[in-house]
C-alpha cells in the first residue's frame, strides 16, 4: 500500500504517494522528476546521490523516503536561486570541475554543506569533506580549485549576487 509523504523540497512543499520501501533518491527522481540527483551504485558507495536533509549532507540512496516526512530536502536544483547560480556552480563551470557532470550534483551538495558550516576551509579540509564523493574524470584538482575560488567569491560579495 502506498503512503503519503509530505516534505519540503528546495523550499517548496512537496507531496507524493509512494511505496513504503522507496528511497529518497527514487522519490526525488521518479515521483518528483528532480533528475539532477544521480545514482552510481545505490549502495552508499559513490556519493553521486548526495542531498541536504535538514541542512546535513546525506546519501539519498540510503534514506528511506518516509524518514523525510515533515523535513526539508535541498537538491542540486535548489542551489540556483532566482535564476542565479550559486558561486560553487559558477566556479565549477568556469574552472573545469565538471567534466561528464555525473558526479557533480553530489559534489556540489557536499561542498555546500562544508561551506555552510565552515566558510573558510583549508584545502585538506575540503579534501576530507569531499572524500566520500568519487569522480572518475577530473582527478579532483580542478574541483578543489573551484571550491577554493568559490570561497573567495562568497567572501567578496556574499551569496549569489
Amino acid at each position, binding site marked *: 500500500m502506498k503512503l503519503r509523504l509530505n516534505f519540503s523540497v528546495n523550499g517548496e512543499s512537496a507531496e507524493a504517494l509512494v511505496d513504503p520501501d522507496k528511497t529518497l533518491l527514487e522519490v526525488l*527522481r521518479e515521483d518528483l522528476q528532480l533528475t539532477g540527483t544521480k545514482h552510481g551504485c*545505490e*549502495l552508499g558507495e559513490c556519493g553521486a546521490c548526495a542531498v541536504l536533509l535538514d541542512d546535513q549532507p546525506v546519501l539519498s540512496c540510503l534514506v528511506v523516503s518516509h524518514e523525510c516526512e515533515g523535513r526539508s530536502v535541498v537538491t542540486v536544483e535548489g542551489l540556483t536561486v532566482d535564476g542565479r547560480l550559486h558561486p560553487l556552480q559558477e566556479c*565549477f563551470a568556469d574552472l*573545469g570541475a565538471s567534466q*561528464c*557532470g555525473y558526479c*557533480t550534483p553530489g559534489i556540489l551538495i557536499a561542498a555546500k554543506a562544508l561551506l555552510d558550516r565552515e566558510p573558510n576551509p583549508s584545502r585538506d579540509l575540503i579534501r576530507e569533506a569531499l572524500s566520500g564523493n568519487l569522480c*572518475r574524470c577530473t582527478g579532483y584538482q580542478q574541483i578543489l580549485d573551484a571550491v577554493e575560488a568559490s570561497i573567495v567569491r562568497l567572501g567578496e560579495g556574499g551569496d549569489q549576487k
Partner: protein
Amino acid sequence: MTRPRNVIGKPRRRVDGRAKVTGQTKFADDIMLPRMLHCKLLRSTVPHAKIVRINTSKAAAVDGVALVLTGESFPIPYGILPVSHDEHALCPDVVRFVGDPVAAVVARDEATADRAVRLIDVEYETLRTFASPADSLAYPEPRIHDYGDFGNVHKAVALQFGDVDAAIAGADHVFDDTFFFEGNTHLPIEQHATVATKDPDGKLVVYSSTQTPHYLHRALSKALAIPAAHIRVVATPNGGGFGGKSDPFNHEVVVAHAAMRLDRPVKIALTREEVFYCHRGRHPVLMRFRAGVTNDGRVTGLDLQTLLDGGAYGSYGVASTFYTGALQTVTYDIPTYRFRGCRVFTNKPPCGPKRGHGTPQSRFGQEVQLDKIAEKLVIDPADLRLNIVQPPDSLTANFLRVGTIGLADCIKKVVERSGWREKYRKLPLGRGVGLACSSYLSGAGLPINWNDLPHSGVQLKLDRSGGVTVFCGATEIGQGSDDVLVGIVAEVLGIEPFDVRAVTGDTDLTPVDLGSYSSRVTLMMGNAAIQAAERARELIADGVSAKLDIPKSRLVFADRRVFDSEDPDKGTSFREAVCMAEAKFGTIGTTGSYTPPKSPAKFKGGGVGPSPTYSYTACVVEVDVDPETGWVTVPRVWIAHDIGCSLNPVLVRGQVEGGVYMGLGEALMEEQVFRRLPAKLSHALVHKFPSILEYKSPTFLDMPEVFTDLIEHPDPVGPFGAKEVGQGPLLPIMPAVANAVYDAVGVRIDSIPVTPEKILRALEAKAAGKAPRSGPGAFPEIPWPETLHVTPPWAGGDGRADNDPKRPTHRKVDAGIEAKAAGMTKEARS
C-alpha cells in the same frame, strides 16, 4: 592576414558547463517517457554451461509483467568488430561467464521486473571453466567459441620488421624481462542505461549512454533485422565512458526489441554489479620484452611477446591484441622489431578498450625495462630516453608515420620542473622518483568497418536570425567534444560560442562521426568543423563583398561582425552578413568531412596503429614507500604533454589530470579479478568484488598535487594544430610509479598494480639475498603462426610483408642483407 584568436586557446567555461552544474544535463536514465516500461535481465550464475531449458512461466504470470524474453527472440549475432560477431542479446544455447544475460523481463516498474526475473528457472549443464590463459592454452576443448585461430585461442599474430634476432645477438647487452599487468575496469560513475521507443511513425528510437552511436546503429540494424534508415540512435551525454560504453551491449538490443514489440517505451538502467559484468576493460596481459642494447644505450632490436586474457567474447579484442605491440616504436628509435601477440578466451566478462586501449600494458613493460637498462649502463634514465627519441617526420620500423614529436621537450620539462637531477638516486631510503614516457594516437587511422567513407562529418545551418547550428555525430562523454565543435565554428566565423548551438550524437539529425574512441574526436571532427565553417565563411564573404563593395580578401570575421580590414568601421553585423549571403545564395548550409591519410603499412595487421599524428607525454612521479608495510603514497606528479595546440586549456588540463588520476588508480589499486566460490557452493568463477566499495579507486584523499605543463608546437594536421589529450597522459603513470618504487626501496615490482604485498614480498626476497623483485616467471610457449616478415622502411621495404602470398611480386629475402642492414647505425639509416 593573421589575427589574434578570440576563442581557440583561451581558457573558457565549456559550452555545456552550465547544464552540468545545474543538474540539467539529460543522461539516459533521466529520460522518462509516458507509458514507459522497465526491463531487468537475468544473468548467468555459472561461468560456462549449456542452457538445457528455461522455464519462464512463473515470471510471465506476475501481475504487471508485459513481456518475458529469452535467446530464442535473438537469433542474429552481432559484435563491434566485423571479424567477431559472437554476441547474442540473450544467450541462445551457451553461457560463457557469470553475468552473461540469459533472459529478460519487461514490466510496469523496475521492482516488478526485478521480482519476476528471479522467478525464471534455468537448468544448466556445466562445461569446463577456463579461469586463466594457462587453462585456455592447456585445453583446446571444449571451445568457448566455435571460431578463433585454434582451440581457445581467439587470435595469435606474429610480425617481424627486419632481422631482430641478428640485431639482438649483435648488441652489447641483452635484456630479457617479463611483466604482468592485471586487468581493471572503467568504473564510470554513470551506470549504463537505455530507453527505446517506437516513434509515432513506427520507427525505432534508442536513447543510450553509448560512446559510439554509429556502431550501435549498425549493430541494432543487424541484430534486429531492421534497416538502419528506420532506426534512430541518440547518444545521451555519457556520465563517463573511458572506453566502457564503446561496444553495442546486450541490454540495448533487448530493450530495442521489446519497445518495437510492445509499442511502448522500455527503459533499462543497469545496477553497479551489472556494469562490472559489461566490463570491456583493460586486458590482463603477460609480456616478455627481449631488447638488444648498445653500450651507449641505443636499442638495436626489440622482441616482444604478449598474452592477453580476453574474457568471454571478442569485443575489440583483435584490435587490442595488435595494440599491445603497435606503439613501442613511435616513442623511441627501434630499428628492428618483432611482435607476437596472443589473445585467449576465458570465462570472465569480456575485456576490451579502456583508455589507452591495449597500449598501457606494454608501455609499462617497455618503460620499466628502459629503467633497468639505464641502471645497468649507469646512464640517467632521462638522458637514455633523450638519446633515442624517434625523429620527427619519420617512418618507424613498423611503418607508422611520425609527424611532430614533442617528446624530448616533454622529458626536459618534467626533469626541470621536478628537480629530477637532484632527486634521482639521491633521496633517502623510502623516498624515490621515477620517470616514464608515452605516446598515443590522435584517432585511429582506419575505421572499424573498412571503407572509403569519411570518419567525421559536420553540417552547418545558418539563417537570417544570425544563429548558427552545427550538427555532428560526435558523442559527448565528458571530454568536451561539444565544446571543441562549438569553439572551432565560433572561431572561424568570428562569433561567440554562445551564438552557436550544437546538435550531436543523433543518427537521424547529424552526419556520421565514428564515435568517442581512439582519441579521434578533436582531430577528425575538428578538421571537419573547420572545413564546414570555412565554406560558410566563403558564402558569407561573397554576400558581404557584393553588397558592401569590399574586396573579399580584405574581409575580417571577428567580434560578431564582418568588416574591412583596412577600414574596420566599414562592415556589418554577423547577422546582417548572413542575410546578405542568404539573399544571394538562398538557404545557407555547408558541410565538412574528414578522412585520415592512407597508411603506408600494407601488411596484415598494419591497420592497427596508424594515426594522423601522435601525442607524447613524459612524467615524473615521486613516491614515499614505507619499508615496514610496503604502503605507497604519491605526494607529487609532474607531467608534460605534447598537445600541439590547446583549444581550451581548462579542458586540456582536466584531461591530463584525469589521466594521471586514472593511471594512479591502475598503478596502485585497481584490479578486476576473480575468485572461485567455495566447492560446497557451486565452485563457480565469480568476480571478486563487483562493487564500488571494494573495487578500490583513488579518492580526494589519495590524489597528489599534479603539476601540468603543455608543450604547444602546432601540428600541421591537427585543427589549429591540436593533437589528442584524452588518453596519452594516463600511459606513463604506471611505469613511473614502479620506477619510483625502485628508486625508493630498491625492489622491482614488475607487475601492476604495485601493491604493498608485492613490495613486502620483494623486500623479503632482497633481504634473503634473492632477486629483489616481484613479478611473473617465464612466458609460456605459444604455438605462434608463421611470422609475417616486413622489411623496414630504412632497408627499402614497401610496407608489404615479404612472405605475403598476395604480394604482387614475391620478394626474395636475403638473410645476409637483412642482417647487415640491421647492424647499420642510426646515422646511416637516416
